[in-house]
């Protein structure tokens, strides 16, 4: 099944709230070789004006990934994970993610272009906090190869 062109413009329901834990931030920080104190030490983060440890910039991927799972699970998407390549990624921040945040992601397919047998799919996950305020928008471009 080729990638469904009707995916363009499709908006998905917001994901269930994700509570950002302090130890999760520390674990993620260690995994991306983020040694700065603001990611590990609540006092260092508070000195910068944050309520708790600050997540590394790409932590937003954890929330974005939940939204991409929704896209992959669409029965009519025509997107098969084993033929999918992550081609581009970007983030636009209003503020950094901080431990204690309760975040929700809402995905919209904003671009879809046929490429040979496959397609290039652009999607934007808008990540907001418990007050509904914007935190970060995560945009990914996936290249979906055609079937053999």
């Amino acid at each position, binding site marked *: 099944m080729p990638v469904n062109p009707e995916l363009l413009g499709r908006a998905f329901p917001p994901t269930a709230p994700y509570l950002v834990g302090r130890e999760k931030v520390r674990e*993620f920080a260690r*995994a991306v070789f983020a040694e*700065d104190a603001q990611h590990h030490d609540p006092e260092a983060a508070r000195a*910068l004006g*944050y309520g708790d440890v600050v997540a590394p910039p790409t932590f937003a991927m954890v929330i974005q990934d939940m939204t991409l799972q929704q896209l992959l699970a669409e029965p009519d998407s025509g997107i098969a994970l084993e033929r999918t390549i*992550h081609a581009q990624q970007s*983030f636009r921040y209003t503020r950094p993610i901080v431990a204690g945040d309760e975040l929700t992601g809402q995905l919209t397919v904003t671009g879809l272009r046929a490429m040979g047998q496959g397609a290039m799919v652009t999607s934007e996950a808008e990540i907001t906090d418990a007050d509904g305020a914007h935190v970060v928008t995560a945009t990914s471009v996936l290249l979906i190869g055609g079937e053999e």
Partner: protein
Amino acid sequence: MSALDAIQVGDVVAERTVHLTRESLVRYAGASGDFNPIHYRDDVAERVGLPGVLAHGMLTMGLAVETIVPWLGDAGRIVEYGVRFTRPVVVDPEDGADVAVTAKVGEVAEGTARIDLTVTHAGTSVLGKAQVRVRTA
């Protein structure tokens, strides 16, 4: 005021080399939730035609931007960050892989700057257009 105000186009503001091992990939898989087996199983990587087990693109993207965070002093100064994944980083089971990051000022504007990241593995660039927009004021 801070050193951020005084930067000029072409300045190298931070650089480092990160040594990745298979353990790094397993650690990132657990921390991020990305358990695609091409990042830890040689047999699967080979079956899908890859030159070997690859680092997660998001691991490379994540460690690259983190190079400038100590210089920035506050990750909240980062307004935008984007990359293209151009080449894979193959992580050898014995020798691992070195990823070298150089962060250079690409553009300075009123209160903001663009930092360009050059990210290489084995002498080859692995991320394209890796750019960070930061607040300097």
